[in-house]
Protein backbone atom coordinates (compact mmCIF):
# COMPACT_ATOMS: atom_id res chain seq x y z
CA UNK A 1 0.00 0.00 0.00
CA UNK A 2 1.13 3.55 -0.65
CA UNK A 3 -0.34 6.83 0.56
CA UNK A 4 0.11 10.56 0.95
CA UNK A 5 -1.32 13.41 3.01
CA UNK A 6 -0.67 17.10 2.47
CA UNK A 7 -1.61 20.63 3.43
CA UNK A 8 -1.22 23.43 0.88
CA UNK A 9 -0.52 27.13 1.35
CA UNK A 10 -4.26 27.87 1.49
CA UNK A 11 -4.69 25.50 4.43
CA UNK A 12 -6.50 22.79 2.48
CA UNK A 13 -5.70 19.19 3.40
CA UNK A 14 -6.03 16.05 1.25
CA UNK A 15 -5.23 12.35 1.39
CA UNK A 16 -4.68 9.58 -1.15
CA UNK A 17 -4.16 5.83 -0.68
CA UNK A 18 -3.60 3.10 -3.29
CA UNK A 19 -2.96 -0.62 -2.97
CA UNK A 20 -2.73 -4.03 -4.57
CA UNK A 21 -4.18 -5.50 -1.38
CA UNK A 22 -3.17 -8.79 0.21
CA UNK A 23 -1.06 -11.42 -1.50
CA UNK A 24 -3.19 -14.38 -2.67
CA UNK A 25 -6.41 -12.68 -1.52
CA UNK A 26 -9.75 -14.06 -2.62
CA UNK A 27 -10.96 -12.69 -5.94
CA UNK A 28 -13.19 -9.70 -5.17
CA UNK A 29 -11.73 -9.01 -1.72
CA UNK A 30 -11.73 -5.29 -1.02
CA UNK A 31 -9.72 -3.90 1.87
CA UNK A 32 -9.60 -0.61 3.71
CA UNK A 33 -7.93 1.38 0.97
CA UNK A 34 -11.13 1.92 -1.01
CA UNK A 35 -13.21 2.67 2.07
CA UNK A 36 -13.67 6.23 3.26
CA UNK A 37 -12.62 6.63 6.89
CA UNK A 38 -10.61 3.40 6.89
CA UNK A 39 -8.01 3.84 4.14
CA UNK A 40 -8.01 7.61 4.44
CA UNK A 41 -9.89 10.70 5.52
CA UNK A 42 -9.38 14.44 5.08
CA UNK A 43 -11.22 17.33 6.71
CA UNK A 44 -9.91 20.90 6.79
CA UNK A 45 -11.40 21.26 10.28
CA UNK A 46 -8.93 18.68 11.66
CA UNK A 47 -6.39 17.22 9.21
CA UNK A 48 -5.75 14.31 6.87
CA UNK A 49 -4.77 10.66 7.38
CA UNK A 50 -3.68 7.79 5.11
CA UNK A 51 -3.38 4.26 6.50
CA UNK A 52 -1.58 0.99 5.73
CA UNK A 53 -1.60 -2.44 7.29
CA UNK A 54 -4.06 -5.27 7.87
CA UNK A 55 -7.06 -4.01 5.93
CA UNK A 56 -9.82 -5.94 7.68
CA UNK A 57 -8.64 -4.70 11.08
CA UNK A 58 -8.50 -1.11 9.89
CA UNK A 59 -12.04 -1.40 8.53
CA UNK A 60 -13.29 -2.71 11.88
CA UNK A 61 -12.02 0.35 13.76
CA UNK A 62 -12.35 2.87 10.84
CA UNK A 63 -8.76 3.77 11.54
CA UNK A 64 -8.24 7.03 9.62
CA UNK A 65 -11.37 8.66 11.04
CA UNK A 66 -10.50 7.33 14.51
CA UNK A 67 -7.17 9.17 14.41
CA UNK A 68 -8.94 12.41 13.45
CA UNK A 69 -11.54 11.85 16.15
CA UNK A 70 -8.77 11.72 18.77
CA UNK A 71 -7.27 14.91 17.33
CA UNK A 72 -10.68 16.59 17.58
CA UNK A 73 -10.61 15.67 21.26
CA UNK A 74 -7.35 17.60 21.65
CA UNK A 75 -4.63 15.01 21.11
CA UNK A 76 -1.53 15.79 19.07
CA UNK A 77 -1.25 13.92 15.76
CA UNK A 78 1.39 11.63 17.28
CA UNK A 79 -0.67 10.80 20.38
CA UNK A 80 -3.83 10.36 18.30
CA UNK A 81 -2.05 8.01 15.89
CA UNK A 82 -0.56 5.91 18.69
CA UNK A 83 -3.89 5.75 20.55
CA UNK A 84 -5.77 4.62 17.45
CA UNK A 85 -3.13 2.06 16.46
CA UNK A 86 -3.07 0.69 20.01
CA UNK A 87 -6.87 0.41 20.01
CA UNK A 88 -6.72 -1.56 16.77
CA UNK A 89 -4.04 -3.83 18.19
CA UNK A 90 -5.77 -4.55 21.48
CA UNK A 91 -9.35 -4.62 20.21
CA UNK A 92 -9.00 -6.65 16.99
CA UNK A 93 -5.36 -7.76 16.99
CA UNK A 94 -4.44 -5.78 13.89
CA UNK A 95 -1.19 -4.04 13.05
CA UNK A 96 -0.57 -1.15 10.72
CA UNK A 97 0.62 2.39 10.26
CA UNK A 98 -0.66 5.91 9.61
CA UNK A 99 0.63 9.19 8.27
CA UNK A 100 -1.07 12.33 9.54
CA UNK A 101 -1.00 16.06 8.86
CA UNK A 102 -3.03 18.44 11.02
CA UNK A 103 -4.73 21.60 9.78
CA UNK A 104 -1.95 23.57 11.50
CA UNK A 105 0.78 21.72 9.61
CA UNK A 106 1.91 19.34 12.36
CA UNK A 107 2.64 15.88 11.04
CA UNK A 108 3.52 12.38 12.16
CA UNK A 109 4.26 8.90 10.78
CA UNK A 110 3.53 6.11 13.29
CA UNK A 111 3.25 2.34 13.00
CA UNK A 112 2.75 -0.78 15.11
CA UNK A 113 4.34 -3.08 12.54
CA UNK A 114 8.05 -3.78 12.52
CA UNK A 115 8.60 -1.36 9.66
CA UNK A 116 6.88 1.31 7.57
CA UNK A 117 8.58 3.36 4.90
CA UNK A 118 7.72 7.05 5.13
CA UNK A 119 9.04 10.45 4.06
CA UNK A 120 8.04 14.05 4.66
CA UNK A 121 9.02 17.53 3.52
CA UNK A 122 8.29 20.65 5.57
CA UNK A 123 10.14 23.97 5.42
CA UNK A 124 12.23 22.46 2.58
CA UNK A 125 13.51 19.87 5.07
CA UNK A 126 13.30 16.24 3.93
CA UNK A 127 13.02 13.51 6.57
CA UNK A 128 12.45 9.81 6.02
CA UNK A 129 12.67 6.44 7.69
CA UNK A 130 11.71 2.79 7.77
CA UNK A 131 12.42 1.55 11.29
CA UNK A 132 10.88 2.66 14.60
CA UNK A 133 12.68 5.73 15.94
CA UNK A 134 14.39 6.47 12.66
Amino acid at each position, binding site marked *: *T*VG*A*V*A*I*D*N*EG*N*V*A*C*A*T*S*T*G*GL*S*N*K*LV*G*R*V*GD*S*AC*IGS*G*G*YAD*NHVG*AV*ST*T*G*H*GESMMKVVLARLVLYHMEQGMTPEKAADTALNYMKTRVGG*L*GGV*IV*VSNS*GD*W*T*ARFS*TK*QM*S*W*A*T*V*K*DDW*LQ*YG*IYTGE
Partner: protein
Amino acid sequence: MKPVIVVHGGAGSIFKDREEGARSGIIRAALKGYSILKQGGSALDAVEDAVVSMEDDPHFNAGCGSVLNEKGEVEMDAIIMDGKNLASGAVSAVKCIANPIMLARLVMEKTEHMLLTDHGANLFAKAMNIPEIPGEKLITERSWERWSKKLEADSNPQEDKKESG
Protein backbone atom coordinates in the same frame (compact mmCIF):
# COMPACT_ATOMS: atom_id res chain seq x y z
CA MET B 1 0.24 28.29 5.76
CA LYS B 2 3.54 26.52 5.07
CA PRO B 3 2.95 23.47 2.88
CA VAL B 4 3.70 19.98 4.21
CA ILE B 5 3.58 16.55 2.60
CA VAL B 6 3.95 13.12 4.20
CA VAL B 7 4.02 9.86 2.22
CA HIS B 8 4.17 6.18 3.14
CA GLY B 9 5.16 3.14 1.12
CA GLY B 10 3.40 0.56 3.24
CA ALA B 11 3.73 -1.11 6.64
CA GLY B 12 4.90 -4.64 7.36
CA SER B 13 8.18 -6.35 6.59
CA ILE B 14 10.51 -4.58 4.20
CA PHE B 15 13.22 -7.04 3.28
CA LYS B 16 16.84 -5.86 3.10
CA ASP B 17 17.06 -6.34 -0.66
CA ARG B 18 14.10 -3.98 -1.12
CA GLU B 19 15.03 -1.40 1.50
CA GLU B 20 17.12 0.90 -0.70
CA GLY B 21 14.51 0.89 -3.45
CA ALA B 22 11.74 1.67 -0.96
CA ARG B 23 13.78 4.49 0.57
CA SER B 24 14.52 6.17 -2.75
CA GLY B 25 10.92 5.66 -3.88
CA ILE B 26 9.36 7.42 -0.90
CA ILE B 27 11.87 10.26 -1.12
CA ARG B 28 11.09 10.73 -4.82
CA ALA B 29 7.35 10.73 -4.11
CA ALA B 30 7.62 13.21 -1.23
CA LEU B 31 9.77 15.61 -3.23
CA LYS B 32 7.44 15.36 -6.20
CA GLY B 33 4.42 16.24 -4.07
CA TYR B 34 6.29 19.00 -2.25
CA SER B 35 7.40 20.67 -5.48
CA ILE B 36 3.73 21.00 -6.45
CA LEU B 37 2.93 22.56 -3.08
CA LYS B 38 5.90 24.94 -3.30
CA GLN B 39 4.65 26.20 -6.65
CA GLY B 40 1.29 27.02 -5.09
CA GLY B 41 -0.41 23.81 -6.21
CA SER B 42 -3.21 22.19 -4.24
CA ALA B 43 -2.89 19.51 -1.57
CA LEU B 44 -5.11 17.34 -3.77
CA ASP B 45 -2.71 17.57 -6.73
CA ALA B 46 0.26 16.95 -4.45
CA VAL B 47 -1.09 13.74 -2.88
CA GLU B 48 -2.26 12.43 -6.26
CA ASP B 49 1.13 12.98 -7.89
CA ALA B 50 3.01 11.51 -4.94
CA VAL B 51 0.88 8.37 -5.07
CA VAL B 52 1.19 8.10 -8.87
CA SER B 53 4.96 8.17 -8.39
CA MET B 54 4.77 5.18 -6.03
CA GLU B 55 2.20 3.34 -8.18
CA ASP B 56 4.68 3.53 -11.04
CA ASP B 57 7.51 2.27 -8.81
CA PRO B 58 7.74 -1.56 -8.75
CA HIS B 59 9.13 -1.52 -5.19
CA PHE B 60 5.66 -0.84 -3.78
CA ASN B 61 2.43 -2.85 -3.51
CA ALA B 62 0.30 -0.56 -5.68
CA GLY B 63 -0.01 -0.09 -9.42
CA CYS B 64 3.03 -1.77 -11.00
CA GLY B 65 4.30 -4.12 -8.29
CA SER B 66 0.91 -4.94 -6.80
CA VAL B 67 0.62 -8.34 -5.15
CA LEU B 68 -1.50 -10.97 -6.88
CA ASN B 69 -4.81 -12.47 -5.89
CA GLU B 70 -5.42 -16.22 -5.62
CA LYS B 71 -5.86 -16.42 -9.39
CA GLY B 72 -2.57 -14.68 -10.05
CA GLU B 73 -4.22 -11.43 -11.14
CA VAL B 74 -3.77 -7.82 -9.98
CA GLU B 75 -6.85 -6.23 -8.37
CA MET B 76 -6.30 -2.74 -7.02
CA ASP B 77 -8.12 -0.34 -4.66
CA ALA B 78 -7.62 3.41 -4.22
CA ILE B 79 -9.18 6.43 -2.54
CA ILE B 80 -8.63 10.18 -2.64
CA MET B 81 -10.26 12.84 -0.46
CA ASP B 82 -10.39 16.63 -0.47
CA GLY B 83 -10.56 18.14 3.02
CA LYS B 84 -11.99 21.40 1.71
CA ASN B 85 -15.44 20.00 0.91
CA LEU B 86 -15.25 16.35 2.06
CA ALA B 87 -15.44 15.24 -1.56
CA SER B 88 -14.06 11.76 -2.08
CA GLY B 89 -13.71 9.18 -4.84
CA ALA B 90 -12.63 5.55 -4.75
CA VAL B 91 -12.25 2.47 -6.92
CA SER B 92 -11.97 -1.17 -5.88
CA ALA B 93 -10.99 -4.45 -7.53
CA VAL B 94 -9.93 -2.53 -10.60
CA LYS B 95 -7.73 -4.23 -13.20
CA CYS B 96 -5.47 -3.34 -16.12
CA ILE B 97 -4.91 0.35 -15.45
CA ALA B 98 -1.61 1.88 -14.39
CA ASN B 99 -2.82 4.45 -11.87
CA PRO B 100 -5.95 3.64 -9.85
CA ILE B 101 -5.55 6.86 -7.85
CA MET B 102 -6.16 8.92 -11.01
CA LEU B 103 -9.31 6.93 -11.64
CA ALA B 104 -10.43 7.50 -8.03
CA ARG B 105 -10.01 11.25 -8.55
CA LEU B 106 -12.15 11.07 -11.69
CA VAL B 107 -14.85 9.25 -9.71
CA MET B 108 -14.75 12.15 -7.26
CA GLU B 109 -14.79 14.89 -9.88
CA LYS B 110 -16.86 13.43 -12.72
CA THR B 111 -19.56 11.42 -10.95
CA GLU B 112 -22.00 11.87 -8.09
CA HIS B 113 -20.76 8.64 -6.53
CA MET B 114 -18.14 7.76 -3.95
CA LEU B 115 -16.97 4.31 -5.08
CA LEU B 116 -16.97 2.33 -8.30
CA THR B 117 -15.93 -1.30 -8.29
CA ASP B 118 -14.61 -4.08 -10.54
CA HIS B 119 -16.19 -4.17 -14.02
CA GLY B 120 -18.01 -0.87 -13.47
CA ALA B 121 -14.78 0.86 -12.50
CA ASN B 122 -13.10 -0.45 -15.64
CA LEU B 123 -16.03 0.68 -17.80
CA PHE B 124 -15.78 4.12 -16.23
CA ALA B 125 -12.02 4.17 -16.91
CA LYS B 126 -12.74 3.43 -20.56
CA ALA B 127 -15.33 6.21 -20.71
CA MET B 128 -12.77 8.60 -19.23
CA ASN B 129 -10.20 7.56 -21.85
CA ILE B 130 -7.90 6.00 -19.27
CA PRO B 131 -5.78 3.60 -21.32
CA GLU B 132 -6.18 -0.10 -20.56
CA ILE B 133 -2.88 -1.93 -20.23
CA PRO B 134 -2.18 -5.68 -20.22
CA GLY B 135 -2.47 -7.01 -16.65
CA GLU B 136 0.97 -8.60 -17.00
CA LYS B 137 2.52 -5.12 -17.18
CA LEU B 138 1.61 -4.58 -13.53
CA ILE B 139 3.15 -7.89 -12.42
CA THR B 140 6.76 -7.87 -11.25
CA GLU B 141 9.05 -10.83 -10.78
CA ARG B 142 8.89 -10.26 -7.02
CA SER B 143 5.10 -10.36 -6.83
CA TRP B 144 5.04 -13.44 -9.07
CA GLU B 145 7.55 -15.26 -6.82
CA ARG B 146 5.62 -14.23 -3.73
CA TRP B 147 2.38 -15.57 -5.21
CA SER B 148 4.03 -18.88 -6.17
CA LYS B 149 5.52 -19.34 -2.70
CA LYS B 150 2.14 -18.66 -1.13
CA LEU B 151 0.54 -21.31 -3.29
CA GLU B 152 3.10 -23.80 -2.01
CA ALA B 153 2.24 -22.81 1.56
CA ASP B 154 -1.46 -23.45 0.97
CA SER B 155 -1.25 -26.51 3.16
CA ASN B 156 -1.05 -24.10 6.10
CA PRO B 157 -3.81 -21.55 5.41
CA GLN B 158 -3.53 -19.91 8.84
CA GLU B 159 -0.03 -18.70 8.04
CA ASP B 160 0.20 -14.97 7.33
CA LYS B 161 -3.42 -14.52 8.36
CA LYS B 162 -2.67 -10.98 9.49
CA GLU B 163 -0.47 -10.01 6.58
CA SER B 164 -0.33 -6.29 5.88
CA GLY B 165 -1.65 -4.85 2.66
